[in-house]
């Protein structure tokens, strides 16, 4: 099925729910538009709110290949687009010398497709089985401005130029998803070409739904307690607030420990699964965790 044929926002929501990815109406709308209009989707938000997951869910739901480009400082064209296989080229030169092949044929051979190592961006331009792939450009805020400028060109026309071979143009543009944790502002020129969405922490009902979809073996009561506690925790003055990924991790930890209900002792033992900074953990040690848990339980009873 071509992704452009998806009929409605509800269809997108159902498609993602089929992959155990529960999303709100807002995120479903943006995803629908990105698929329908063939525009890159720019997702920004705190760590652990499901930005990367949605790319995996879309790829799985549509049966497409997922090509991931993890960004880091110093990422350059050689690791993002393509590189020549130099060792093989050197061997070919030696072999040509031995056999006495002419320079012209050597040149044509050496910079041919068989010596090309394709990196994620170039792979995404190639036709794939099952339709255009999903290209996930993860944590774009970790690269620098020059790479952003390069992406602008690549995402604008969905083509990459290799001086020795010519231009490779995607027959059908890939589904592009960019994510950012906002450790710096990404340039407006890049954002302007994308559909933007700020991924927020989900509310209680949605997070419970997510947890039940992701960790179905957890009892309903425990899931509700876990979510209520994490939601309280996000209201606290923490350096790094826990994301949905942490909620899921924590629920799995509790399951592994055969915990049936939350208690201050259990929380103290497993806090490392939700809080990742020593300052934050120290804050929650002692009576603070108990207060939050009591709050959460009270809210659950009244609800």
């Amino acid at each position, binding site marked *: 099925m071509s992704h452009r044929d998806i009929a409605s926002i509800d269809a997108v929501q159902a498609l993602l729910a089929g992959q155990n990815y529960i999303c709100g109406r807002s995120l479903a709308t943006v995803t629908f538009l990105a698929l329908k*209009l063939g525009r890159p989707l720019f997702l920004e938000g705190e760590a652990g709110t499901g930005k990367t997951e949605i790319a995996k869910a879309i790829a799985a739901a549509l049966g497409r290949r997922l090509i991931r480009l993890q960004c880091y400082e110093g990422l350059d064209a050689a690791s993002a687009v393509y590189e020549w296989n130099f060792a093989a080229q*050197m061997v070919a*030169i030696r072999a040509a010398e031995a056999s006495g092949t002419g320079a012209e044929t050597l*040149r044509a051979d050496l910079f041919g497709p068989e010596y090309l190592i394709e990196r994620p961006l170039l792979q995404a331009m190639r036709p794939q089985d099952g339709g255009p792939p999903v290209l996930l450009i993860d944590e774009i805020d970790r690269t620098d401005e020059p790479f952003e400028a390069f992406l602008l060109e690549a995402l604008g026309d969905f083509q990459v130029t290799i001086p020795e071979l010519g231009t490779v143009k995607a027959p059908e543009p890939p589904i592009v998803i960019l994510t950012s944790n906002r450790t710096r502002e990404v340039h407006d020129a890049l954002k302007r070409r994308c559909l933007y969405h700020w991924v927020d922490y989900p509310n209680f009902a949605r997070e419970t739904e997510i947890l039940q979809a992701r960790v179905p073996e957890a009892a309903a009561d425990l899931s509700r307690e876990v979510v209520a506690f994490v939601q309280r925790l996000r209201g606290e003055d923490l350096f790094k607030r826990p994301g949905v990924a942490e909620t899921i991790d924590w629920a799995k930890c509790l399951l592994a420990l055969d915990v049936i209900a939350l208690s201050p002792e259990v929380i103290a033992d497993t806090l490392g699964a939700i809080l990742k900074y020593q300052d934050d953990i120290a804050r929650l040690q002692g009576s603070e965790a108990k207060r939050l848990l009591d709050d959460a339980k009270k809210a659950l009873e009244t609800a």
Partner: protein
Amino acid sequence: MKPPGAAKSETQDLAEPTLPLPDDPKLTANLTHFARALRKAGLPVGPGRVLTAIEAVQAAGFTRREDFYWTLHSVFVSRPEERQVFHQVFRLFWRDPRYMEHMMALLLPAVRGVQEEERAASAAKRAAEALLDGAEASAPPQREEERDEDALIEIDASFTASVEEKLRALDFEQMTADEAAQARRMLARLSLPVKPLKTRRLRADPLGLRPDWRRTLRGAMRTGGEVLTLARRKPATRWPALVVLCDISGSMASYSRMVLHFVHAVANRQGQGWARVHAFTFGTRLTNISRHLRTRDVDAALNAAGHEARDWQGGTRIGACLHDFNRDWSRRVLGQGAVVLLITDGLDRDDPALLAKEMERLQLSARRLIWLNPLLRWDGFAPRAQGVRAMLPHVDTLRAGHSIASLEALAEALSDPRDRGEKARLMAMLNG
């Protein structure tokens, strides 16, 4: 594509036959009006986005108000801060567009008037200062006496040193209005040179240490596959970012003004390094003034910053303000290894444990934390205040920031990564 500004002129422009537009001209007109409203509210909305919006609305359809909201949201919003503005404009506009236009018309002339007035005001102030050169100098009467007393001593100095040189060493607090004006001019010329950082990206360089196989082999093609020269690469460089946290409480009044003049000069100088300069002021609360600093006119910039920061010359809550900075800003402005310049006297009455904790967090997230403390100019300065005792262990360098000469010396601290300034001496006093 139409040139920018085309949609601004009139809505009919968009309805040209060459453009793929919907049959419903009313929708196009409404969306264009909506985009104009957003633009007036400060969102960067160009004609390209209007076309995308029309396309998007067609794709998503009109079934639910919520869908319509998120469709337009995905096209027009590109930053988290803009969400609130979008929400308000959306709410107002799609209830009654005319009402919105009316509101805008009512609000806009007033806003524009204020801005023009402000611009005129700062220019006028300087014009007045220029005309009243002599008259202004007599402003603080008690200073005149001090000057008479000092004059006898200073005569000797003036034979050997130029006026500028004398000013360089003079404490900001003891300057007369004349001298302060002269000092501000000197500050405007001052720069803060910094060394570039090595990045992990490589660029071609004949003296580099790493081989560039790609260029080597391309060169070898010309000689029939014989490698004659090895092309080389070496790491490229980039400039670090500077983050300034400036105390503007009452005890720092005369210094913070001068230091902000200096920061403005650093932020606006081209080609001296510093990828970005972010500036924050704090007293009782933290204010981001980076945007205002980019105004070229220093008076206008500091005026705008002053309007934004409402706590000039009030009390100080260093710990609480650093906490706000660490929570809301540190990840965004310190992400790529920024140098932090903290300008404060460290006189804080809040809980020293909180202050120490926040200082530690700040030092952990910054490439370098440099503390400028104007109190260091006193020879007998000792770390007795509880705030100073809490902050001292967590800074990389401690320096005085009370005169032009001391600000110039800051460049030294930046160029030497092992520079500790006065920290070692004061730490010894703290532990002794």
